[in-house]
């Protein structure tokens, strides 16, 4: 099957998955006690005010009608208005996605850089001192809670030595970039540790393979042996893991965004749940689902290029 056919097939498969996602999210958030009207109006609201607003928001209609309205909006790419902020959900999410995508981008870069160098070295020097230090480092990185690492880094590099802002996102791109370094680095530690372990094991396993020695027996120089045989094979599972982590990060990291006061998707999600802002929660979850599915498809395609034994069908 050609790659194009495969992509078409996978895209069609998104539809049933998305329908299930919409049903789940739509009904589940309505199971949470409390409703947006009381949250909006506060404790002193009169029953009349509540009734009026409920009708205005369309929350008086039967729930399946509400669902159909929601679906109708969805297929026309209208995500509705935020019940809380009273602006179109699209505008609300738009800006915040830029933050989350920027954060994810730099996290991926940092994770890849750190894990590639350390994981590869640890694999080549299996059981030697370098390997032991790197494995220890990975274990430490995995054991430290992110919010704590974030706070420590903030104290060190924003309070004591003032090279990064203490929090926030800023207004211009140079400010954004300065603001994103610390949170991205904090978030990258755990992923880097996981990736480094994965790459280390990949290199260790590949080094045991006969084809590496066979490549050497051909008279191939060590650089080519490492590049075309060892790294090439060890990268297969590394790339898969990295893309899975990336999908996860794009959903927004609540902890990182809270610690560094970044207006990202994760923070929006939490705030929306508190204010029972149904439209926003639904939109964020659906977008997240689309991202995860898309990245999964891209990963599968990348996988088939990295490992020709994998067939797309």
């Amino acid at each position: 099957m050609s790659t194009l056919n495969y992509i078409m097939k996978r895209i069609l498969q998104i539809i049933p998955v998305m329908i299930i996602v919409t049903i789940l999210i739509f009904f589940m958030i309505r199971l949470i006690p409390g409703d947006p009207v009381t949250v909006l109006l506060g404790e002193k609201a009169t029953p009349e005010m509540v009734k009026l607003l409920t009708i205005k928001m369309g929350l008086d209609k039967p729930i399946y009608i509400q669902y159909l309205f929601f679906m109708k909006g969805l297929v026309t790419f209208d995500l509705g208005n935020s019940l809380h902020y009273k602006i179109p959900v699209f505008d609300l999410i738009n800006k915040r996605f830029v933050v989350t995508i920027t954060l994810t981008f730099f996290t991926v870069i940092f994770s890849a850089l750190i894990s590639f160098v350390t994981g590869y070295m640890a694999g080549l020097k299996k059981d030697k001192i370098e390997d032991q230090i790197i494995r220890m480092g990975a274990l430490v990185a995995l054991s430290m809670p992110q919010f704590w690492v974030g706070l420590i880094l903030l104290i060190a590099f924003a309070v004591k030595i003032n090279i990064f802002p203490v929090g926030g996102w800023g207004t211009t791109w140079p400010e954004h970039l300065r603001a994103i370094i610390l949170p991205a680095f904090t978030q990258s530690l755990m992923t880097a540790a996981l990736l480094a372990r994965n790459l280390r094991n990949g290199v260790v396993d590949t080094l045991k393979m006969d084809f590496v020695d066979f490549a050497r027996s051909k008279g191939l120089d060590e650089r080519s042996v490492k590049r075309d045989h060892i790294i090439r094979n060890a990268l297969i599972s590394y790339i898969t893991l990295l893309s899975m982590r990336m999908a996860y990060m794009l959903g927004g990291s609540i902890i990182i965004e809270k610690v560094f006061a970044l207006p990202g998707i994760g923070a929006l999600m939490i705030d929306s749940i508190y204010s029972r802002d149904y439209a926003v929660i639904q939109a964020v979850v659906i977008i997240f689902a689309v991202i995860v599915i898309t990245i999964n498809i891209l990963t599968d395609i990348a996988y088939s290029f990295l490992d020709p034994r994998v067939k797309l069908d």
Partner: protein
Amino acid sequence: MKKILEINGLVTSFILKDETIQAVQDVSFYVNQGETFGLVGESGCGKSATCRSVLRLIRDPGKILNGEIIYKGIDLLKLTDEEMVNYRGSEIAMIFQEPMTALNPVLTIRKQIYEALKRQKLSKNDMEIKAINLLKKVGISSPEQRLDNYPHQFSGGMRQRAMIAISLASEPALLVADEPTTALDVTIQDQIIKLINNLKIEMGMSIILVTHDLGVVAQMCDRVAVMYAGKIMESADTLTLFSTPRHPYTIGLMNSIPHTDKEHGKLIPIEGNPPNLSNPPIGCPFEPRCRYSEEICKTKEAELIEIGEGHKSRCHFIDKLIDVKGIIEK
């Protein structure tokens, strides 16, 4: 005859945390220009470690601790790693035992042949022509299409052929074939053996053939060494070895070959197991399994001594074996 390779006193060990496995213990032999030298023995006797030592492809924690490997007058063990690279491929190439694992699964056959041709600095076009010819030579049909296949699209026999093609791409003077047919089924085995033999004659190579199959030895080798527990037990030219074996282990090996004629209706296996190489016995390593053994064998190991022209054996009681007949007549 000119010697292309001479190994003297090779010692290769695998140094683990709490034990050292002495895979190759003081092995010496030579290979003449243009001949096929057989290295025979059961699994784990140090054949592969000897082969890998020749190319200096001993994997960690293995180490070549002692000896000389003199190839065309140069001791390979004295070369730097970078210098050694120049000897691999174009001078000494190797065929591995497992065609399933010796080819890189993520690279095309084309790429893997090209890697072997890299040093010849050919144009793209010439490389392709040469790669196609190589595949043709080893009997792969429609090589033009096969060139862009991946190893998993090949059957076991075809992979072994492809591996041979890759090994031969750099036109080596010495080919080390480490059990090239063990992983293949019998009909393919025969084809591969004939293929290697033909290519040897065509290209004028010398071969070290490692096998545990005495039939293959008889078919291909000019001279043979029988290895046991990391040591050479007996060596001779093939005819001498098969007609007048002079070591109990060699005799045991010959008795354990299946025969189709009625006289030898039953196989006679060699009882017991080879010794643990991390703690080799002080005496003869074959003593516990040997039907000729006496008290001295337990405490003192025999030297590998010359007992005839080019015929060496490591046994205290060669005179006991004087009447033993081999499986062929001289």
